[in-house]
């Protein structure tokens, strides 16, 4: 029996705010297989980040359940790495120190193996030669590579990415997408990838999940009709154009309704 890496069943989240309860998510049903790459599309404020934080164990669902590898999520797990919208690196620490930070922060010390491991990941992420640089000396794209390297440091099985490339310029963004695919193919992981961009979702993911306006729920869950490996030309076919048009329609229809 194949076990889902992540599964939401009737999961929902209602925040208590000063102006009364606010339901960010409600009745979310979704399962993600191990090593599957799933992109989540949805209007801002529909609860995408909330979905991700529930998966990470940072907040508990107020209704339903979120499970990872068959177990309900009650607290953060070691096998989940997170990449944020902004790289949010430590500005005083070198690239290498930023990448080993999970070890330093979790265990309080950094071993030789940790450093070797970090340098290896830094190289895989295309940052060789930048180990001693400070984040302030790097471009936005490079900083986000460090952010990804840091998330990969503890060798997680699940990678949660919250609009990781949306702060980058268009060209860097495309390049980073393919870079991510390369990393994912070299070392398969379960990826939950949140984005605003339809082309980005389609070129990267096995499956695209579309969410409604708040309170967010899943309104479409579609397999991307595209084989791998993919490249820049993959989206040019009529079939892909139609698929993206369909996704756009779902997002817009929800906005108008």
């Amino acid at each position: 029996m194949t076990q889902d890496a992540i599964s939401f069943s009737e999961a929902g989240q209602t925040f208590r705010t000063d102006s009364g309860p606010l339901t960010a998510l409600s009745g979310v049903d979704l399962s993600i297989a191990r090593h599957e790459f799933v992109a989540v599309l949805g209007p801002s404020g529909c609860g995408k980040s909330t979905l991700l934080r529930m998966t990470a164990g940072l907040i508990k669902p107020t209704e339903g359940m979120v499970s990872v590898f068959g177990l309900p999520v009650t607290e953060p797990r070691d096998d989940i790495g997170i990449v944020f919208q902004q790289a949010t690196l430590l500005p005083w620490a070198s690239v290498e120190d930023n990448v080993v930070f999970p070890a330093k922060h979790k265990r309080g010390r950094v071993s030789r193996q940790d450093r070797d491991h970090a340098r290896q990941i830094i190289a895989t992420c295309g940052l060789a030669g930048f180990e001693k640089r400070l984040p302030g000396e790097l471009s936005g794209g490079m900083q986000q590579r460090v952010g990804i390297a840091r998330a990969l440091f503890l060798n997680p099985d699940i990678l949660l990415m919250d609009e990781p490339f949306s702060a980058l310029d268009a060209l860097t963004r495309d390049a980073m997408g393919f870079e991510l695919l390369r990393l994912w193919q070299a070392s398969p992981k379960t990826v939950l990838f949140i984005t605003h961009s339809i082309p980005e979702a389609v070129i990267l993911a096995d499956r695209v999940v579309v969410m409604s306006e708040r309170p967010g729920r899943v309104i479409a869950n579609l397999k991307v009709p595209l084989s791998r490996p993919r490249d820049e030309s993959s989206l040019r076919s009529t079939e892909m154009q139609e698929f993206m048009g369909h996704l756009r329609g779902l997002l817009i229809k929800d906005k108008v309704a």
Partner: protein
Amino acid sequence: MSAEADISVSEQKDTATTKVPVAPSEPFMEKLIRLPVVLPLLTFVLILVVWEAGTRLFAVPSYILPAPSRILGGFEVVSLSRWVEHVWSTLRVALMGFVLAIVVSLPIAVGLAKSRFLSRSLYPLLVVIQSVPVVAVAPIIIVVLGTDDAPRVVITFMITFFPLVVSMTTGLMATPPELIELSRSLRAPVWREISQIRLPYATPYIFSGLKISITLSVIGAVVAEFVAAEKGIGYFIQFSTSMFKLPQAWAGLVVLLVMSLVLFQAVSLTQKILFPWSLPKERK
């Protein structure tokens, strides 16, 4: 190509060695003026000259405004070892008050930043304490704590600690929430979240607080000496003024000024050497 480059370099060298000694070229003067110290120094000298000339020209009595030369004379009234004693007395109190303020405000700031309950209950209380005019409380503190360093250190502490608490708390809360989530996702202990993320992030804020507080600490020490002391620059100024020896009071003032500036620079330098990344990026 390389030959051409060589020629142009030697030409430049030639013009440099021949022209500069004869008549300093414009760029050199401009560079000199643009050095950060030169312009303020020139202004300062100019003020001194006008001051000296003005007081002599209009025969201003020295108890109203002594000429700079008279103030200089005021330094000689007291022996060097006595000056050192006065300076050390004030400096010691200022530094002890400053350190006490750091030690006390750090845990308070951590508490305020981490706990909603504390920030709601303790912060208003701190504002009330801060609003009490320390000069008015000083005599009471002296009566309660006696006449040695202790009351003066406490008075200095009271003047210094509030800006520190505010800047530290602001700094500790300035950490990007993503990093706090990263810390939680790693299930790291809270004290490591503070020491490895929040405190370093607060460094620029802490140092702007330290720079304000170090100057305040000198003020605190002097205020304390005004109330009760038999040593220290504040005491010396008050004593001199009461004897109508104004040039020597002004000399004391100059010493205080230098002390404040040196302490401020020491804090700035500490930041520059130990935490260069925390300085604002230089704009060009």
